[in-house]
Every structure is written in C-alpha cells, then in structure tokens.
C-alpha cells in the first residue's frame, strides 16, 4: 500500500498498545514490590509469590485448554493476578492454602466468566476473599518483618502439609527474641488499642503485615510510574485514596485518641496496594471518567467505614469487590451525553 495514505476506521489510536504490553508493564511495576517483600520477609515470601503465580498460571492454562481457547497465558494478565494475590497474603501463609486461593481466584473469578475481559470482579481478590472465609485464622497470623535468618530458613507455617492446620509459629517467633512483638499488625493495634504506629515506619514499610502491602512509599512510586506510563487510570487510585482520607478526617477531628489519622489510614494496611493495583483493574472498573471517580470514592470511603466500625481489621478487599459489583451500574449511570442530543432522554 502507498506509504503516505493509511485509511482506518475509528478509534484513531495514536499509540500501538496491546493488552499483553499493558500487562507486561504492570508486572514490571509489581516486581520492585515483590523484591521488597522478599527482602523483608525472606524465603517464605518468595515461595508464596512463586506458588500463587504458578498455580494461577496453571489454572488459566487448564481452563483455556478445557474451553478450547488456545494459550491465554500469553496476555500476561494471570501473572498479575498471581503476584497480586501473593502480595496480599501474610508472609507465613501455608503454601497449600495459597494454592487454593490462586485456583479459586482464577477459576471462579475469571475462567467461569469467560476469561480476561469478562470477569466481573478482580480475580486476585476473589481468591483472597475465599481463603479469608475458609481459613480465617491462618490469614490473620502475622510474622515479624526483618526476622534474622529469613533468607536461610522458612517461617514454619509455610511448609504445612496440604489439608492440615498451619504449623504453629509461636515458638519460632519466641526464638527470634524480638522486643515488643505482639503478633498484630499496626492496623490491628490501632483498631483495638488505639495506638498508632509511627507514620514514617508505616509509610516506608518497616512494619509487619501482608507480604507486599507494607511499604506504602514503594507502592506509591511504582503506581505513579505506571500512571505516568499511562498504563492505569490515575483517577481511580487518586479518588480511592481521597475517599479514604476524606472519610477518616471527620472522625479523627472528633476524637483523635480513638480514631486513626488520615495519614495513618493511607499508609497502613493494604489500601495503597489495592488503590493502585487492584481497584484500577481495567476490566472490573467502570469505563467512564466520571464513573471511575464515583467508584474510587465509594471504595475509599467504604474501606474506612469497614475499618472503623466493622468486625474486620482491614476492609479494602470487600470494598473493592463491592465496588467491582457496582461497576457496570456506575458505568451506565454516567454515560456521557451524545453531542447534539437533548439532556433528557
């Protein structure tokens, strides 16, 4: 064809950008967070991430083969699911439970709906919600960060035999001779004892928590890079975080001894990771510009409501799942008016 003239139908995209390229970039942005998780929690975190990613990939391959779809691993989306799931689990989470979470997440959250592009909810969070309901004790068993010898030995509960209760970690933790380790995350300490961890520690990630959610700073940098690469809609994380801060502010002003400050809300728990990498799931979030703002504010404020008044310590998972469920409705509410038509109709 003649080089000068190229005739195409709309949309007239200026960049050549494919699904697998977006997904590869997101994986790249997740890698520093994974590296920090491994640095912080050692070999156990590495095995956890490898297990969730491996099982998620196998499940995707299996269901794609079953439905005669060919190889859907090539779009890399399932790698993101696996990594994100691993990052949201406690570092000492038994590997067999992590495998169950990855299988349920990909099978129930994605494959049964028809694969990438059809999932109503974020598959990683579906998997996590399932194991949260199935194994409530294991998923709230935390181990200290920066344990000495973390690159040499595993957290005892990691290598639990399948279908068995996690090996107790109490003796192992006691053997570490740590001062002031209560077995709770800063979020739980704030909720039940109303003592806030130092913001600097919570923000930089020098705390206990799920494998990859501790360092708000690192997640923020990776997320910003991704937004700068235009691989995610910046409105979603910004409105999630704004929603959370705005909802936390009045309570903190009323009683700062009891309720957490907005800064603590933003830097603790899984909110940062969820805002940048999970709420921004391209398939499960609304499609309109106004819609994603409503969606983000809803998720952020619901997270804080669950944290402050619910039985759970962290609420961002259920907030996002509910936000995902509302996504199509928000999209249809916020459809832009077609130019030239009247406001009513």
């Amino acid at each position, binding site marked *: 064809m003649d080089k000068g003239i190229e005739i195409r139908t709309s949309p007239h995209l200026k960049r050549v950008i494919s699904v697998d390229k977006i997904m590869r970039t997101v994986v790249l942005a997740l890698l520093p967070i994974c590296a920090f998780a491994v640095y912080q929690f050692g070999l156990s975190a590495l095995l956890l991430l490898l297990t969730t990613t491996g099982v998620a990939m196998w499940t995707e391959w299996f269901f794609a083969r079953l439905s005669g779809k060919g190889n859907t691993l090539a779009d890399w989306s399932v790698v993101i699911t696996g990594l994100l799931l691993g990052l949201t689990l406690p570092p000492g989470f038994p590997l067999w439970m992590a495998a169950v979470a990855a299988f349920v997440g990909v099978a129930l959250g994605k494959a049964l709906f028809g694969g990438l592009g059809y999932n109503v909810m974020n598959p990683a969070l579906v998997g996590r919600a399932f194991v949260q*309901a199935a*194994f409530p004790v294991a998923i709230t068993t935390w181990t200290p960060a920066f344990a000495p010898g973390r690159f040499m030995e595993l957290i005892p509960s990691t290598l639990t035999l399948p*279908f068995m*209760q996690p090996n107790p970690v109490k003796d192992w933790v006691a053997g570490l001779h740590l001062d002031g380790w209560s077995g709770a995350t800063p979020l739980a300490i704030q909720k039940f004892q109303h003592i806030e961890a130092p913001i600097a520690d919570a923000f930089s990630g020098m705390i206990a928590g799920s494998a990859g959610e501790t360092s708000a700073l690192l997640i923020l940098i990776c997320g910003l890079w991704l937004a700068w690469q235009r691989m995610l809609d910046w409105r979603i994380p910004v409105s999630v975080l704004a929603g959370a801060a705005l909802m936390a502010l009045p309570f903190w002003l009323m009683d700062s001894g009891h309720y957490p400050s907005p800064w603590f809300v933003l830097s603790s728990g899984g909110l940062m990771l969820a805002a940048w990498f999970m709420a921004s799931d391209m398939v499960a979030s609304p499609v309109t510009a106004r819609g994603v703002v409503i969606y983000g504010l809803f998720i952020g404020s619901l997270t804080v409501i669950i944290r402050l008044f619910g039985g759970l310590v962290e609420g961002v998972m259920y907030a996002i799942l509910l936000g995902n469920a509302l996504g199509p409705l928000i999209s249809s509410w916020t459809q832009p008016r077609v130019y030239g038509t009247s406001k009513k109709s």
Partner: protein
Amino acid sequence: MAELPNTEERLTPDTFLRGLWEENPVFVMLLGMCPVLAVTSTTINALAMGLATTFVLVSSSLLVSLLRSWIPKQVRIASYIVIIATFVTIVDYAIQAISLELYAALGAFIQLIVANCVILGRAEAYASKQRIMTTLVNSLGMGAGFTLALLSLGGVREILGNGTILGISIFPADFQPWIVMILPPGGFFVLGGWLLLFNWLRLRKERKEAEQIGVTAHAR
C-alpha cells in the same frame, strides 16, 4: 382414565431411573433449591431431609394419583397442598419423636417441605395424570434423586468443612477445616461445582450422540 389414554406411560426401568439422572430434581430441574442450600451442611441433615422429602413426595403423589378422577381441575392446587401438608405434619411429628436434636438442626425446613416445588411439581405434572403403580415408581426415583443430590452436597460440605463424614472423623487430628464450606456461601460453591460437572457430562454425551448421528447420516 378413559378420556386421556395417551398421556399414561408404561412402567419401564426408565420410570425410576429418570429421577436419578435424566430429570434429577436438583441437578437438572433445579427445583427445591431452598432445602438443598440450607440443610446440607452435614451429611446427617442432608440424609434426614432427603428421606423426609422422599416420604412426603411418595405418599402425596400416591394419594393424588388415587384421587385424580375426583379432584376438580379448578381447585387442584389447593387440594394437592392439603394432601402434601397432611404428610408434612406426619413427618414433622415423626422427626420430633425420633430425634429432637435432628429436629432442631433442620428447623423450619421440615415444615417448608410443603412449599417444596419438587413435590407440587410431581403432583401436578405426573401423579395427576398417571396410574398408581407408575406414580409410585416415578416418585420413588425422584425422591432417591433428590436424596442423592442432598447427600452429594452434604458429603462434600461436611468433609471439607468439618473433616468428618456422618460425624466420623476421617482425617488426622490437625485437619484444617474449610470454614466457608459449612457457611451459606459453601452451599452455593458446592452446588455450582456439581452443576458444572453434570452439565459438562451431559453436553459431552449430547455432542457424542450428535456426532454419531452425523456419521450414520453421512454413511447413508
């Protein structure tokens, strides 16, 4: 029935087997979902519920079939409900007499057998048109199919959610129970899993049959 001779079916093994597989009330017709989801958290509950429903199903179908030429068409649903309610009351008192513990576990779902659409469906679609013998065999098959479905849900849920089957522990002591399985969501998960399996098997069978027809048609 002299006026409707062509609707009566002959007694074949299929009369019974249909309820187990081809027209399984739970896995194929998706009827009576309320007890299926609500009382299948243990095998014992599932078995008791299945047997109670089977008893009501068989006896009410028999009575409907027996009275089919006397029940006026206009009030047939009301009549069926009265018949079903009679047997449900019997079952209700019987379970209360046999095991108060079981009665407490099943709760309101025993009385709710009245509203089980499998039973009313059988009365309306089968018993009111068929002879007593075929009705008996067919409703026995349906009841067996219903009980089997409840058991397959209750079994999976009890094994995963509790580590036991019929109350007997089958795993080592440090088995990790999947708490979600004995909660309501577990019922939906397991039911969905079974439906997936059954539909997959049926589709595969249909596809094979279609292929066979295609082959023979081609050979001709």
